[in-house]
């Protein structure tokens, strides 16, 4: 690959890595996995750099790889990751044992399907519209709506339960 391509690619990575990493971390729910996911996406982009040609195409391409790859990643990892309907760490009574909200919500997010997680990240972190989210995921707007509703309902159910427990426990 010619040196000027490397220079172009390096400039792209320098400029966009932070934003892309933030998306990757939220999609995977883990910083290390996010780095792995972004690195995989960047290698693919590098291999296709001569076809991408323009930074706007490259970023769209990498974002697309991140979103589609995380779903297949999580499917492959399903065998060793334990998704459960219940939040595994239930808070117990006593102020010192209260599980912080972000931990509870983070655990609840991990129980969602990869598609639901991606939809929520795109809608509420990237602030994409339903249509833009559908376009990025390659699905219908109706699917985005239903995935969003189901994801939020599941979070309310899981997080709400723990809040109720906490209240019942006297916190």
């Amino acid at each position: 690959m010619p040196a000027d391509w490397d220079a172009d690619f390096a400039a792209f990575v320098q400029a966009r890595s932070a934003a892309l990493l933030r998306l990757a971390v939220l999609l995977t729910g883990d910083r290390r996995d996010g780095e792995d996911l972004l690195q995989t996406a960047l290698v693919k982009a590098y291999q296709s750099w001569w076809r991408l040609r323009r930074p706007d195409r490259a970023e769209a391409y990498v974002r697309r790889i991140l979103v589609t790859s995380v779903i297949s990643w999580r499917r492959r990892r399903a065998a060793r990751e334990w998704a459960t309907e219940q939040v595994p760490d239930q808070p117990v009574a006593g102020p010192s044992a209260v599980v912080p909200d972000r931990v509870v919500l983070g655990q609840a997010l991990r129980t969602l399907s990869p598609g639901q997680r991606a939809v929520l990240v795109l809608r509420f972190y990237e602030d994409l519209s339903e249509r833009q989210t559908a376009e990025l995921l390659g699905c219908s707007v109706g699917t985005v709506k239903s995935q969003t509703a189901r994801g939020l309902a599941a979070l309310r159910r899981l997080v709400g339960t723990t809040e109720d427990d906490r209240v019942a426990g006297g916190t």
Partner: protein
Amino acid sequence: MEDRLREHYRDELAGLEVPDLLPAVLAAGHRGRRRLLAKAGIAAVAAAAITVSVIFLRPAIGQPAVDQPASRSVTVLTRTGLSGWGPVSGMAAVPGGVWLASSTRGELLRVDAGTGQITARLPVGGPGTGPIAIAYGAGSLWMTDGHTNDLLRLDPATGRLRATVHLYTTALAARGFPAATGAVTVGDGFVWVSQWGGVAGTWYRLAKVNPATDRITGLPAIPGDFGTDGVTIAADAAAVWVNPDGGPFVQALNPASLRLLGAAPIGAGADGLAAAGRNVWALAGGTLSRIDPPWSAVAGRVRLYAPLHANAANSQILGGQALAAGPAHTLWAAGPALYRIDETSLRARPVSDFGPVDNVSVLGQTLWAQTDDGVVYQLALTA
């Protein structure tokens, strides 16, 4: 809950440090490429890939295996070196020669069939924004221009511009929206061009251009959104077939009504499509699939080679013309070798001595093959 979610995302990213991924990415990207480009390694890698594909990669049930390399069914007529010209984004055989496109160099180049000499070298756009794809048909060479997003009609003998067709993406790009033209092919008397645009490559459209008027006569939307690398197209009187890059389906459209006729799963994005009568062939991940009417299922498969991976020994980037229909019910495919496939029996034979091939193009009894190390061969096809 929405607000809590937003707050949670902000918390999750607090203090996030961005590691320097560039060295690892470049190393991974270079690794495979260097292996192939090492002169002494090319033959060994190709031979190993062929051996592995023949001995170990047994096809799935009902799929014939790739045969051992056979005696050549081709005769080399000319050999033209393109050392240092870079990746070839498209190739199109024309009467009396072949044209090659380099998007990265921003050039079109013509090789003469009679002498094997380069007889034209035309600048298009600029480095990185040159010609995307080229195709021959209706007496002209057709090219999608990565700089202007136009479709250009050129004289196939000289490269002289005959007409410019402004596409939908031309106007979009001029207004600052991400948009680009992609593949081009000629079939059923029309020129077909793919376009994508919008936020993050959000839509695809196919432009149907009448070569009698150089005007767009149809602009059907292509369902799905699979990436921004573009769409592979093949066209014949029976149908127009499209495969958005990364999309695991080949969709068939009625060339007259532009309505969707069927969609056949091929498992991965196609590296190449080739129309052969009422059938279409798709090369995806080293496997060739035949799709028959009504184009809703794969009718036959043959595995030519293992999928090309960025970091594996068979690392290779195929060009935009990786599959071509030849005479006498044959197909020709690019890959770790040059492959000849019999349409009827689904028997595939690697043709030895060329090494990894990026692009193939057929016109009449002549096959042009561009190898990964930058050589263009003109081959006479024999029975």
